[in-house]
């Protein structure tokens, strides 16, 4: 089973004059500091919608979307979308991360033992790049999975961690129901994933009908936005590898951040869970797993 996915990358914000009235309302509701990034993301999405021949008002699309996905880094955004809508397609996910130092001790939160073992076998020069690539693969898989209410990044496992184009599955469903591809995009890693309805994951079970609420997905970007606003740190400076210690000069800031996230996403953390968390990526994973 294959699906052709188109990705659009841009650094240019959408011109405000080109916004629809609903988009203008959305923009007006945003804090000033995130407006430029929002316009860049909307520009990427608008370009993609144009190419795919879909209605251009970006407010008509809610994420997760069965056919579309969106990600951003500082000053750039990528929108990805399936060229054709097919019944077998369950979801699309995209993730983009700028190159950075990667701490080995964070891999336990998103890689399984086999993947970690493969990563450990690489020379030091290649390890950081591959670790970041696998992070983007896992994020893309998570975003593509419409049934991710109770999953965390580590629940997604690649059949061959070394493959830059390959298949993946979740622990809950043994058959491979995901395809993914990774590539370099300037100084960043880009991964795109697609979820398919497998033999045991019927369209009914993976894509709830209208009577069933669509599962909410908490992305790293959403968590980063909240933290940016709570701690008054530019969202561009927040990455999955950012440590909580770097963010919070005093420990009560962590409490503020944790309470705010729980209030925002209507969830509950325990002390034990928070003790295990050292990076923002892990924190986002915890929020995603709990919501």
């Amino acid at each position, binding site marked *: 089973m294959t699906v052709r996915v188109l990705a659009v990358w841009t650094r240019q914000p959408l011109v405000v004059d080109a916004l629809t009235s609903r988009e203008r309302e959305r923009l007006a509701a945003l804090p000033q500091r995130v407006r430029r990034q929002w316009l860049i993301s909307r520009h990427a999405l608008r370009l993609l919608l144009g190419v795919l021949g879909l209605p251009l008002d970006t407010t008509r699309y809610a994420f997760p979307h069965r056919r579309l996905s969106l990600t951003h880094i500082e000053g750039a955004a990528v929108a990805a979308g399936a060229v054709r809508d097919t019944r077998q397609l369950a979801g699309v996910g995209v993730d983009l991360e700028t190159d950075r130092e990667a701490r080995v001790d964070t891999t336990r939160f998103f890689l399984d033992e086999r993947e970690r073992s493969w990563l450990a076998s690489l020379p030091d020069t290649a390890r950081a790049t591959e670790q970041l690539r696998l992070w983007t693969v896992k994020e893309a898989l998570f975003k593509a999975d419409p049934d991710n209410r109770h999953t965390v990044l580590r629940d997604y496992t690649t059949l061959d961690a070394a493959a830059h184009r390959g298949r993946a599955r979740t622990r809950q469903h043994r058959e491979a129901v995901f395809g993914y591809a990774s590539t370099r995009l300037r100084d960043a890693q880009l991964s795109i994933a697609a979820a398919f309805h497998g033999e045991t994951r019927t369209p009914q079970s993976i894509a709830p009908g209208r009577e069933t609420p669509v599962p909410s997905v908490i992305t790293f970007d959403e968590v980063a936005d909240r933290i940016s606003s*709570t701690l008054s740190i530019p969202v561009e400076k927040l990455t999955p590898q950012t440590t909580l210690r770097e963010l919070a000069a005093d*420990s*009560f800031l*962590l*409490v*503020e951040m*944790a*309470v*705010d996230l*729980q*209030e925002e996403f209507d969830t*509950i*953390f*325990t*002390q034990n*869970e*928070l*003790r295990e968390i050292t990076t923002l990526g892990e924190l986002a994973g915890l929020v995603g797993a709990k919501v």
Partner: protein
Amino acid sequence: MTLSENDLWLLSFYRSSEINGALFFGRVARTLRGGPLQADVTHHFADEANHAKYWTRCIEDLGYNAEKLSGAYQDQYLEAVGLPANLMEVMAITQVFEKRVIGQYHRHLRAPDTHPRVRQTIETIMEDERWHVKYVRDALQEMAQKYGQELIDDTLARFTAADEEVYAKTLAEYGERIVFLGDGPVDLSVPAAEV
């Protein structure tokens, strides 16, 4: 009136604790969504700041300046119980701490030769403290639906045990400064009528 070194230290300690309480509740208030609890915690934040002002004025009226004290009782608290992980834990710590404050102020009121100006300050503050314990208790009752009564009870028990440990440590460190409050056993409980 002449304040002994220990008198001045204790009144300054109260002032410092109230300042730290205000800083704590200010930050909690900042994280809360709109609603009754946001209003109550904001009120609490303002009360704590006022209490610090009352102690500053009280000390000045007695002819002194408050001492600058580093560290705070609350810091030891968080060290002992760990950082609160959620809003329920913040409220549970608050309840245990407020009971401790009321117990300590009661003990001071019972001490012989407490200066009327000090007594007046404590009594003024106690009126607010009673409300603090009540609203926090009500908030925790409300939270039972979300967090479960058992978890709340367990959390309160855990924090109460930590509170006793911290208070014992504080007494071991500063006990000689508060001997004048009476040499009977330290009363860790709060009179039922107050809560």
